[in-house]
């Protein structure tokens, strides 16, 4: 079955695939997780706070993003970010945004929605008495969140946050649609150049599988350990 295949192509292009390709994918995943986690937490706190108007705006944004395919959102931001940049900086023409920044902005703004939903569930899982107690000892709303509610919410939600990171890691492969060279993009380029589609795509699948499977095992392990800690 594999008689006509040339698996040596993988060895020949390994450094390009793993360093250029996987390097981009991991950097994008890591930074986007960090930024989206922070933004998502802020969105969740504001959404549950007693301030007027803002929670409604956030609900609107969350529902809007969740009803659209990621591919369409990637296109939206890819074309929109240069115009927003122009508007923010007051430049003459739409500013040029690099492939990496464009992808990072997209994934941060989109994944923040999913992280905010997780953090919202986390905050709501902390009993109301905690917040009441924090307020009673004289902390303000933001202080109670910062020092009492969020640390516990965050710890309870670690498995879900990590699972969402694995999803994000898989989703970064979609930057393919705007011709960015992530891991899959690199594999695709080698595949086209050498006419080795079968070998490269199988290799990509195996690498993604091993990484995601190992990560999800780790999450499951953490989850089990967390159960005892509570």
């Amino acid at each position: 079955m594999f008689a006509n295949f040339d698996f040596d192509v993988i060895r020949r292009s390994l450094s390009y695939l793993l360093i250029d390709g996987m390097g981009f994918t991991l950097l994008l995943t890591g930074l986007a997780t960090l930024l989206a986690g922070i933004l998502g937490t802020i969105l969740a706190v504001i959404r549950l706070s007693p301030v007027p108007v803002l929670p409604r705006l956030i609900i609107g944004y969350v529902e809007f993003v969740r009803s659209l395919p990621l591919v369409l959102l990637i296109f939206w931001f890819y074309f929109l970010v240069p115009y927003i940049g122009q508007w923010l900086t007051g430049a003459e023409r739409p500013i040029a945004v690099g492939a990496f920044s464009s992808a990072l902005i997209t994934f941060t703004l989109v994944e923040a929605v999913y992280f905010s939903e997780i953090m919202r569930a986390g905050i709501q899982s902390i009993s109301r008495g905690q917040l009441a107690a924090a307020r009673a000892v004289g902390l303000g709303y933001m202080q109670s969140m910062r020092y009492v509610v969020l640390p516990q919410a965050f710890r309870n939600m670690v498995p879900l946050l990590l699972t969402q990171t694995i999803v994000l890691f898989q989703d970064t492969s979609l930057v393919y649609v705007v011709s960015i060279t992530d891991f899959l993009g690199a594999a695709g380029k080698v595949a086209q150049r050498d006419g080795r589609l079968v070998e490269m795509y199988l290799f990509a699948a195996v690498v993604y599988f091993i990484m995601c499977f190992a990560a999800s095992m780790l999450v499951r392990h953490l989850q089990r350990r967390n159960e005892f800690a509570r």
Partner: protein
Amino acid sequence: MNYHWNWQIFWELSPEGTGTYLDMLLSGLWWTILTSLAAWAVGLVVGSVVGIARTLPIRPLQWLAGAYVELFRNIPLLVQLFLWYFVLPELLPHGLGLWMKQMPNAAFYSAVAGVGFFTSSRVAEQVRAGIGALPRGQSMAGKALGLTVAQTYRYVLLPMAYRIILPPLTSEFLNTIKNTSVALTIGLLELTARARAMQEFSFQVFESFTAATIMYMVINMVVVIAMRTLERRVSLTGR
């Protein structure tokens, strides 16, 4: 913003010569709906079988179903679509592979298989969770009544389990619709692909994406309302 808005663009003829730009987007919408429904059918049927297999008291079957879920869940959908579309025909015997490649609408069938099996692994997890959420006494009661395992599932466990997982299944169906857009990478002319093509032909980026956005939101709303109606219709009172 020095962007030239032109909302009349939808009534202009597209360079493909098959109608206006609006017609182009609507044909994309049609393919999105068709692909979603077909992929959902695959995902629901296969996912149910695998999910049930994970709850049966047969060890090798449980392990096999578990491996199936891990396999389809841990590879990005885009890569899975490439495997179905580019790789599978090469691995099959020559004649069969050639037939697959020359099949009309090959991208559609690959998309249905790719999105369908990807969805099935997630449906399987929901089905398993739904059956797991039922009290153990339910299956024992089935057994005590003299029902076979198949009958216990058919008449006792599954009717309750599916009612429990109806809300998460709704969001899985919404995900399926959204996931069909990934198939634009293998040449399926669904809604996002058509919006992208319209943008390339007419340079009206924001009009075409706005139209596609509205269409996705409408589909979303229709599905949510339909599923809520279904939930109310099948709900059992006094549980």
